[in-house]
């Protein structure tokens, strides 16, 4: 961990002013990604700006029915928040499937969105990694790549996006509010993370000095049943090998609306739009789920050690859809009762 300067900001304007658009400076809130990577000498900020005390710790329901989450709300607070538990159980399940109690107590909503890959070659300052050091190559392509992505990959980078929370955001639909030297703007969550393509070092749409201030969830699917299923080697405290987050709404036996996103298999939080399309109006039965799973993975690119992720992700999708469907009716009733 190289030396760096440190400043604390108490409002977003001050934070942005201190940052000044200098990309050697970084914001810090939970620190669970940043301090980890600075200790590994993978990130070498010249200055850190503490934004954990910004007044962004509220979770509130907007008049239009959406839920606005302050950037500094911790993952624990968000997962246990009554409004999230009631209206967005997928988000609560996904957050609680990630990391550990301690990390969830530290990590913030915006910090989770900004989480970096766990690719071991990215995390090793001596390895070749286009994401860390553009043009240096990718040691993962022909190295140990069991944990790596099969969707959204390029020949420059196959690093997996590690977040569970972001899988739920991708499925639920959300808008990020950004604030920066040029003012305030909004961007759809699913447009925020970039595919690696030719430039894996550009991970997202944040401009220099910009800060995420809020994440606003789309209105919940009426009558939707939710299931987040995370498949991994051990029972806890491990990143996903494959995960699927699904929300299913039914009309009778037929799927009237569905949201599906994948984790552990893609280079960004992965909304499975082809699968959603395949499910629309179909009976909520195993054969429909299997067709959708095939659609979701039709463009998957396996490498030496991660080919199993394709059938594994299929299984995650089919089971998550099954479980979400089973819960669909209950949710409708609950919502109805509570108006």
């Amino acid at each position, binding site marked *: 961990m190289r*030396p760096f*300067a440190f400043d604390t900001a108490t409002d977003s304007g001050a934070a942005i002013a201190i940052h000044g658009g200098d990309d050697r400076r970084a914001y810090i809130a939970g620190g*669970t990604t940043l301090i980890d990577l600075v*200790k590994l000498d993978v990130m*070498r900020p010249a200055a850190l700006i*503490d934004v954990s005390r910004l007044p962004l710790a509220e979770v509130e329901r907007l008049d239009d029915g959406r839920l606005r989450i302050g950037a500094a709300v911790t993952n624990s607070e968000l997962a246990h928040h009554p409004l999230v538990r009631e209206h967005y159980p997928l988000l609560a399940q996904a957050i609680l499937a990630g990391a550990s109690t301690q990390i969830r107590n530290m990590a913030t909503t915006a910090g989770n969105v900004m989480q970096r890959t766990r690719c071991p070659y990215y995390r090793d300052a001596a390895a070749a990694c286009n994401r860390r050091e553009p043009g240096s190559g990718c040691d993962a392509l022909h190295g140990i790549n069991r944990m790596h992505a099969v969707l959204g990959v390029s020949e420059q980078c196959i690093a997996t996006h590690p977040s569970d929370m972001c899988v739920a955001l991708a499925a639920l639909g959300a808008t990020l509010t950004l604030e920066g030297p040029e003012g305030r703007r909004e961007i759809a969550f699913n447009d925020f993370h970039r595919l690696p393509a030719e430039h894996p070092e550009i991970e997202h749409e944040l401009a220099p000095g910009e800060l995420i201030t809020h994440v606003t969830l789309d209105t919940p699917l009426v009558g939707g049943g939710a299931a987040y299923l995370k498949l991994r080697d051990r029972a806890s405290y491990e990143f996903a090998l494959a995960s699927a987050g699904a929300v299913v709404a039914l009309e009778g036996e037929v799927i009237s609306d569905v949201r599906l996103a994948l984790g552990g298999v893609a280079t960004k939080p992965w909304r499975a739009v082809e699968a959603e399309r395949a499910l629309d109006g179909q009976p909520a039965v195993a054969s429909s789920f299997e067709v959708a799973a095939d659609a979701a993975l039709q463009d998957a690119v396996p490498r030496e050690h991660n080919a199993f992720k394709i059938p594994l992700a299929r299984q995650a999708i089919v089971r998550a859809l099954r479980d979400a469907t089973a819960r669909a009716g209950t949710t409708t009733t609950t919502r109805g009762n509570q108006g």
Partner: protein
Amino acid sequence: MMDHSDAPPQDADALTVTLTVNGETHRLTLAPNVVLLDALRDRLGLTGTKKGCDHGQCGACTVHVDGRAINSCLRLAAMCEGRAITTVEGLARDGALHPVQQAFLDQDAYQCGFCTSGQMMSAAALLDDGRIGDSDAEIREAMSGNLCRCGAYKNILAAIRQAESEARGRGGDA
């Protein structure tokens, strides 16, 4: 092969940080890159909190900040100004072991003891956190951020159950 490197950073200015640990206030002059764990151990001599991995992967460094369990290895000391920090040294009160400590003793919920302060800090926070369910599965999941290579998990769970029933017996609020 040559390691890449950018220009050598200068040693940034030290900060004055006031830490409140186990109810006592300490004024420290620290480099900005000092994490809470190292400040506790190296500057305050509170070596009961352990460094197992230094990267938030094991839980040995667990302390409470404002009542919540966190990994002190991933928290800059400078960000703890004004927060109430509790370490294992602050668990016992008036010379009596905390119910979690007593339960760990009674249930032999440890072997080498190196992960133990972190285990107990997580257990104590868990018992005070009404949001976490009471089933074995939920407790085990909530405790999974604390690795124990000796594998004393069975006795750790028994100790949490003992401490929980004692707290209930005392009429302690959950």
